[in-house]
């Protein structure tokens, strides 16, 4: 992915970049027409885009298609950059590289959003595959977990939290693989930034009906609602609003997209009787 980004950055003129995209588009493998389904379609694009994934040797290989040539070129960029990665790598990849592509200057927000949405759909598909892997390797039988949405969703959050680190894949990243990437990331960042005496992150996404099931359904959204309790000396002398702002600032990335709601309790050690 990095080399791709660099290659793309090297092209100075927007028109030349568009030419590049057209070139990428031509290099895409043919896309099976029968996969032009709602499930494979990227939402919120100005044009129609479809993405499918195939798992070979624990690695994902992508195919994509679009009725817009430029969008197809963007999709090709992602297909090329993300094919051959493990599901975990893709799930854990921060979307920063999109900004680095320098497309923002030449792409309008609607197209730019579309690009982000493509990446998100790919992450979702990667997560689904990871779940299937997990289910397969897990002897306690989460085999039925391919079921789409509905009741099976409740409690899934905690269940997976517990089995989270059971199967690291040595994928080169310094963090371990996890089924709860958002919760982990919240934990890690708050720990780093606030050196908390107490930190509790509870995913209660399952309480929020109407958000679709945990897996497979079209309105899939994963980890979306958290209760966080933090006790930290960093809060001393700060009003409640300022404490909250501080936390929101630290969790900026997490709150930008997947997390809908974050319920916060922020105490100083003194207030928590821990000083």
């Amino acid at each position, binding site marked *: 992915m990095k080399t791709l980004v660099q290659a793309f950055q090297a092209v100075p003129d*927007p*028109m030349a970049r*568009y*030419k590049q995209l*057209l070139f990428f588009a031509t290099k895409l493998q043919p896309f099976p027409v029968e996969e032009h389904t709602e499930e494979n379609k990227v939402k919120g694009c*100005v*044009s*129609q885009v479809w993405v499918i994934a195939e798992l070979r040797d624990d690695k994902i290989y992508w195919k994509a298609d679009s*009725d*817009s*040539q*430029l*969008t197809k070129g963007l999709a090709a960029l992602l297909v090329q950059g993300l094919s051959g990665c493990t599901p975990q790598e893709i799930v854990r990849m921060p979307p920063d590289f999109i900004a680095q592509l320098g497309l923002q200057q*030449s*792409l*309008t927000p609607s*197209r730019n959003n579309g690009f982000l949405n493509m990446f998100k759909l790919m992450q979702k598909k990667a997560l689904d595959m990871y779940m299937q892997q997990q289910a397969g390797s897990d002897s306690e039988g989460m085999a039925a977990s391919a079921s789409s949405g509905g009741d099976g969703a409740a409690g899934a959050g905690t269940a997976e939290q517990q089995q989270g680190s059971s199967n690291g894949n040595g994928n080169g990243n310094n963090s371990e693989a996890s089924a709860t990437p958002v919760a982990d990331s919240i934990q890690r960042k708050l720990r780093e930034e606030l050196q908390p005496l107490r930190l509790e992150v509870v995913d209660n996404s399952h309480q929020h009906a109407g958000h679709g099931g945990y897996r497979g359904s079209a309105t899939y959204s994963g980890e979306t609602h958290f209760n966080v309790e933090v006790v930290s000396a960093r809060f001393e002398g700060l009003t409640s609003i300022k404490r909250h702002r501080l936390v929101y600032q630290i969790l900026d990335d997490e709150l930008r997209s997947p997390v809908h709601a974050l319920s916060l309790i922020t105490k100083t050690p003194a207030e928590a009787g821990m000083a």
Partner: protein
Amino acid sequence: PAPQVQDAPAAAAAAADLGTATRADFPILHQSVNERPLMYLDNAATSQKPRQVLQTMDEYYGEGGYNSNVHRGVHALSARATAAYEAAREKIAGFINASSPQEIVYTRNATEAINLVANTWGAAQLREGDEVVLSVAEHHSNIVPWQLLAQRRGLVLKFAELTGSEEVDLEKLAALITPRTRLVSLVHVSNMLGCVLPTQRVAEMAHGVGAKLLLDCCQSVPNMPVDVQTLGADWIVASSHKMCGPTGIGFLWARYSLLEQMPPWMGGGEMIQEVRLEGSTYAEPPSRFEAGTPAIAEAIGLGAACDYLSGLGMERVAAHERELGAHLYWQLRSIDRVRIYGPSPEARLGRAALATFNVEGIHPTDISTILDSTGVAVRSGHLCTQPVHRHLGISSSVRASPYIYNTKAEVDAFVDALKDAIQFFT
């Protein structure tokens, strides 16, 4: 510099001049986009605002200004604000030749104005089985409000289709109108097809069965003389931002006697006569429909926009657009693989100064993206008219729409840029 006011100039001369004459009034146009001079051709979506309108709003908020809440205020600023807010209503009334300023109801935009009619007259008058006749060419804002009301009230919605020349088919329309029809609601000038409705004929059809006629005048009021005394409509709606005025304001017109029959919609300040815990009485129109602190600066700005357009002369504006629109149409027609939607400029009522089209084999957003990289702003997508797109067998399109400040030279430059873009993908 203020534009020259001319009285009914020769059409051709006016058209040649207006773009150049008005350009200086629009500071925003004098900029580069992607290192190329901006060529703004997305006017059917929103127009730019002349210096005169911006100054009027600055005079409201800024130094020596009079920003203040309107009505009921007993101090000097409030007095000035109220006078200006009501004077603007008078200007709008004059602009469409309404009988009285009290026939103008301020709304956020034309969309809200249609929703207002649906939720007042519609909710009070329409009953299960009543029919509302629309066309497939309607903007979403003239479809969804009626769908929502139809769900609540059990109405029947009917949609007139298009003729071979892609105008609303009046014969099919006539066939849809029955004694059960209570409302006909149509677009006066289509933002997608550019076709123009023969409003008096449609009014006769509607009134012949006792139905009312609402006209969506978003694309007519900014571009041609619209006279509600001869138009035939019972209501018209329009948006400020498409007619040189600010965002956040639009209006509904109806004859006062009809407004009087409409119950209130939103509750709050301004729209009441007396509020008691047990129940309230409501103000006369138009106040009845203007709950809460209104968009004061915006209303005053819209008044200034009416002054500006009247100063140019709407006949002159229409002549300019007729010429520019026809030029645009025939230039585009000359390009291979380009398919323009809607009637030709030679249609009996002509067509609006906009061209919605597709280039065979190239996605509309690809076209507009490449055009944008050369400074040309056009719209692409479904143009808030998915049904007519579906009717024509497409999902999206490109639209170029010039306005008073665009010139024939710009249209030529746009056509060249389009040819380059097509080349780019070939």
